[in-house]
């Protein structure tokens, strides 16, 4: 009896001859064996990067923001570029886990767990940048509204920078809750398989005593659905609010109403690229090719070509509006500093155009969408391009102020500015390596849920059913 019917023509989501127990075995195995040499090498490289980041931040806190090359007009340099970049990467995880759940896209089950983990780590990395940019970081709690002895002088709720505080912290909390509630049943599975006492104890604690009761599952499903419904507008709001940081200011190149949709599309674009980079490696290292299939990779590449094209349209619209506005400052920002290859930062604009708009168009070809080497290469290219986008927006608009007397020297980062960025990579990958070792990287229970409708060996059985007349089929399967 199939509770849900799915056509044989759809590509199976789980390859190979699997049953429920094998699904458990395949996904729990990496957690239960010693990590490979490759894992240790990767982990220690990440920790080394993280330590360099810690040292860079230590310099910045001890000696002040002067450790960075920010200057009179370029007050937001690499730091805020990296912040927006990491936040954007986080968006793909929520899109996969929430929006695709609402759209009933079965393929999300293979990748949602790792993508949500990526979201959480990316948001943690993103949060570091505005935090340490404050300079006097020990005053960071001033951003929260609480009755204080300074008046009480409250924070400015009308400021987009404060909206950001609320948006990012809400986004982090909700993503974490969504991710963790999804993990509970899988922690239960690992707990019940545990061979050692310590493992049983630890996974017992984190599984909150999950038993698999029908009533619990019913509530769990309801919770997942509502959290998905809440996360969907939330994820759109987060990058919208990040774009308000720019769009509400009167700076040429920032002051546009196209920013919210353009930022959200860009965020999903870069996020999917990061998911691809991680998945291509993850499926190989942990031998999960049956669960993260070429079909999954292809589906994500389709999202990349779609969102990349939306971003491309946004770039062209911006240029058009720059010309159409007949505003001298806008035209200067768009046609003199950005689209002009020979201006001081022209290279970054054309780097962005090449990486984000032109190169993803190769994914119109099915062969290339299903090629792992091309996918991995493109995922790196797209992330470089999206980093350039934020750099273009921030630096090219800031480095020439309205007053030519405040035009500064050429802005380029110091080693510690770069070190902070490298350190965020260290933080991200350290977290991801630990996640991959101790957490089920694929949602076990969700895979089991789709196994009998979308698994390869079950699909074969559907072949006979499809030959039946419709009336007979409906009589048997409709409910």
């Amino acid at each position, binding site marked *: 009896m199939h*509770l849900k019917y799915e056509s044989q023509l759809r590509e199976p989501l789980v390859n190979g001859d699997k049953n429920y127990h094998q699904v458990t075995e395949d996904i729990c195995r990496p957690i239960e064996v010693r990590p490979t040499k490759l894992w240790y090498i990767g982990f220690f490289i990440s920790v080394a990067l993280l330590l360099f980041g810690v040292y860079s931040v230590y310099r910045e806190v001890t000696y002040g923001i002067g450790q960075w090359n920010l200057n009179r007009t370029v007050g937001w340099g690499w730091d805020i570029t990296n912040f927006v970049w990491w936040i954007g990467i986080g968006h793909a995880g929520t899109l996969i886990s929430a929006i695709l759940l609402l759209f009933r896209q079965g393929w999300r089950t293979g990748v949602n767990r790792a993508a949500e983990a990526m979201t959480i780590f990316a948001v943690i990395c993103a949060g570091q940048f505005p935090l340490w940019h404050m300079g006097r970081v020990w005053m960071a709690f001033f951003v929260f509204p609480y009755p204080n002895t300074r008046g*009480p002088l409250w924070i400015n709720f009308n400021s987009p920078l404060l909206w950001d505080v609320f948006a990012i912290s809400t986004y982090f909390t909700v993503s974490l809750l969504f991710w963790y509630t999804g993990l509970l049943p899988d922690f239960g599975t690992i707990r019940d398989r545990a061979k050692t006492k310590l493992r049983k104890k630890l996974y017992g604690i984190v599984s*909150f005593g999950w038993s698999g009761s*029908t009533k619990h599952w019913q509530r769990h499903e309801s919770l997942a659905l509502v959290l998905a419904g809440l996360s969907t507008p*939330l994820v759109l709001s987060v990058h919208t609010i990040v774009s308000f940081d720019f769009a509400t200011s009167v700076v040429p190149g920032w002051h546009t109403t196209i920013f919210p949709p353009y930022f959200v599309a860009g965020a999903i674009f870069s996020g999917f690229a990061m998911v691809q980079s991680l998945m291509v490696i993850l499926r190989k290292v942990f031998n999960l090719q049956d669960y993260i299939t070429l079909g999954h990779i292809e589906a994500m590449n389709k999202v990349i070509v779609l969102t990349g094209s939306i971003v491309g349209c946004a770039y062209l619209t911006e240029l058009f509006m720059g010309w159409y506005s007949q505003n001298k400052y806008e035209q200067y920002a768009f046609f003199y500093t950005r689209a002009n290859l020979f201006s001081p930062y022209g290279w970054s604009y054309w780097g962005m155009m090449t990486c984000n708009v032109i190169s993803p168009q190769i994914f119109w070809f099915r062969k290339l969408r299903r090629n792992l080497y091309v996918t991995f290469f493109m995922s790196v290219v797209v992330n470089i391009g999206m980093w350039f986008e934020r750099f273009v927006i921030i630096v090219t608009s800031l480095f020439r102020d309205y007053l030519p007397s405040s035009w500064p020297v050429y802005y380029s980062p110091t080693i510690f500015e770069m070190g902070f960025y490298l350190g965020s990579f260290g933080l991200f990958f350290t977290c991801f390596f630990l996640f991959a070792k101790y957490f089920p990287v694929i949602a076990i*229970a969700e895979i089991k849920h789709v196994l009998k409708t979308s698994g390869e060996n079950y699909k074969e059985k559907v072949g006979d059913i499809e030959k039946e007349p419709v009336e007979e089929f409906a009589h048997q399967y409709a409910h």
Partner: protein
Amino acid sequence: MANKNFVVGCFDDEAVLFPAVKKVRMAGYKIHDVYTPYAVHGLDHALGLRETSLHTAGFIYGITGTATALGGIGWILSWDWPLNFGGKPHFALPAWIPITFELTVLFASIGMVLTFCYLCQMAPFVKKHQFHSRATDDAFVMVVEPTPKTNLEDLKAFLSANGATEIEVQEAEAGWWLGTYDKQQKLVRDKGIEVA
């Protein structure tokens, strides 16, 4: 609550489980619960469970968040310490919408997750009686709660006839929320049974 006997039947396939659930209920036995490795859609209806109202709770929490945000910001910016931001109105509703939205989502999510944990009696360090260790792997475990008059052998034979593979009688604490407190608020620890 005192400990009771339960008859535990293990099923290997949901296709066998559904007709069995129906027949066991038709025969007048009380199904205590069914433990499954994943969310089997429709099983709650088959067991006759009522719909969860967790989403209603979520709505109430969300509204609380909206009210907190609007009330809080309104009070702060237009009453407690009205600041002049470039001559703009003190009651600047459009500018408060982003934070109002964020707090609505935040309150709804945190509230719902806490309610979920409360209703399911789930928390770190909570241990529950587990009827079968494969219930989180590949077994669909039906637990039937017999009355004092029930003939256990009959019930076991009935489960077996309906496709259960492993059948056994276990002693466990009765009641919907297993393994925490009894009526006199005394912690029950059943030592005889392996708990995880």
